[in-house]
Structures are given as structure tokens and as C-alpha cells.
């Protein structure tokens, strides 16, 4: 009887040690994966939302820098209104619905920026300028690529 009791106790002890180690290892790897995911989430969204911010900046400054044109040109006013609606619909989260809206609206936003380019008689190509800027600011970061002082 006492020999059986001791054996069970040892087994329980071993299981306890194993479980303690397992929990510690799982907790560490779970946190590591969470952080890796978060890094990639930050990078992806930063790259994606520069253009949204850029367009919001256009919508804020154009009525000031082109005040008379905005009041006289209905097409310009309409384009700015449409752009306001399109960027306003974009949501900063990664749900399926929000991502679908982003994908749809970003195409429309780019097209409206082309229209805006003509209406403002902007020298050069506004869309190409934005694309170049986004590339310059956020580059094309791969998940596996990690600079020493960056995530």
C-alpha cells in the first residue's frame, strides 16, 4: 500500500514539474508570437494609412490654398465631398468588413485624386507623387526583415 502511494506521489510530482515547465514555455512563445504579430500589424497599417492621412491633409488644405476655385468650381467641390465620404468610410481596424471597405475605397480614392489633379491643374501626377511618398516613407518591409533598432 505504502509503495503504491509513493509511486503515485512521484508521478504526480513529475507531472507537476512538466506542467509548470509547459505553462512557462507556452506563455513565453505565446507572448513572442503576439509581439511578432503586433509588429507586423503596426508596419502594415502604417504603410496602408499614410495615403488616407495624405488625402485628409488635401481635404483640409485645398479649401484654404484654392479658396476661390473651391467656391467657383462645382466639380471641384463635388470631388472634395466625394473624397471626404470615401476616406470617412475607412476604418482603422483589421476586421474583414473594414479591410474590404479599405480595398474598395482606396481604388476610388486614387481615381478621385486623378480627377482632383486635373481640376487643380496640379503640375505633375498627384497619384504618382503620393505613391512615391508612401514608398519613400514606409518602403516595402518584409515580415522577416528586422533592423536592429526596429521591430
Amino acid at each position, binding site marked *: 500500500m505504502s509503495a503504491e502511494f509513493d509511486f503515485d506521489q512521484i508521478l504526480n510530482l513529475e507531472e507537476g514539474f512538466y506542467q509548470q515547465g509547459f505553462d512557462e514555455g*507556452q506563455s513565453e512563445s505565446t507572448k513572442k508570437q503576439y509581439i511578432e504579430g503586433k509588429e507586423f500589424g503596426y508596419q502594415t497599417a502604417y504603410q496602408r494609412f499614410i495615403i488616407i492621412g495624405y488625402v485628409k491633409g488635401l481635404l483640409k488644405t485645398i479649401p484654404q490654398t484654392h479658396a476661390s476655385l473651391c467656391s467657383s468650381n462645382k466639380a471641384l467641390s463635388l470631388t472634395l465631398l466625394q473624397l471626404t465620404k470615401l476616406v470617412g468610410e475607412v476604418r482603422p481596424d483589421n476586421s474583414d468588413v473594414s479591410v474590404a471597405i479599405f480595398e474598395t475605397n482606396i481604388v476610388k480614392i486614387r481615381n478621385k485624386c486623378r480627377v482632383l489633379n486635373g481640376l487643380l491643374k496640379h503640375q505633375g501626377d498627384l497619384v504618382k507623387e503620393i505613391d512615391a511618398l508612401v514608398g519613400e516613407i*514606409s518602403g516595402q518591409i518584409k515580415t522577416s526583415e528586422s533592423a536592429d*533598432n526596429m521591430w
Partner: protein
Amino acid sequence: MQGGDESDFSDDDVWAGDEAKVVPAQVDTKEQKHAKQGYVDGLANAKEGSLQTGFDNGYGQGAALGEKAGEILSTLRQLSLAGNTKAGELFETAKAELNIQNVLSVAYFDDNLDLEAQHKVIQKWEEAVDKVSQ
């Protein structure tokens, strides 16, 4: 137990007197062995969904930062095109400072990659834009 008292040990039991020293060492070894195996198995079994949860949480915060950076750059660029030379100079500096590698530098985040307060670089440039817009 006082050491050196041979009357405590029986000649028939060769293990007598050694038990107190041997058992803890055995337990330590077993603990290390099983805990190590458990740790290794645990490392290979990260809780499902942690990568996605991390991505989703980072995405929202990254979107807010990217949007602010875009708005700062756009405003400076438009003011520059409208003839504001100071805004033009600031635009070039802002491009360098709002680079993703600088904005997402670990220096601005805590161990959980959360911002402790407002992002210092973004805040600096928002203030600069306010000033140059006046």
C-alpha cells in the same frame, strides 16, 4: 539530527543516514528534467491565435500613426506648393523623420509595443504644422 552519532544507523540498512541528502538531489534532477521537457513542449505550443491577436492590436495603432504622418506630410506639401517656403523646408525634414523605421523605433514603445503617451515624433510634427499653417 546531530552528526557523528553512529547509534542512529543500523548496520543492516546500507542506505541509512544517506536518505536525507540523496532524496532532495534526486527531486531537483527530476524537477529540472521534467520542467525542461515541459518548457520545450510549451514553446512549441503557443496558444492559437496569439499572432493574429497581436496583428489586430498593432494594426489599429499603426493605422492611427500612419494616418497622422500622411496628414502632416500632405499639409506641408500643399502649403509648400501654395508658396510657403518654410513649409517646403519642413516637408523635406518631415519625410526623413516620419520614415517608418524612425516612427516605429522601439524607443517610443513599451515592452508590449504600446505607446506610453502620444508619439513624440508625430506630436512634434503636428505642432510644427500648426505653427507653419498660421
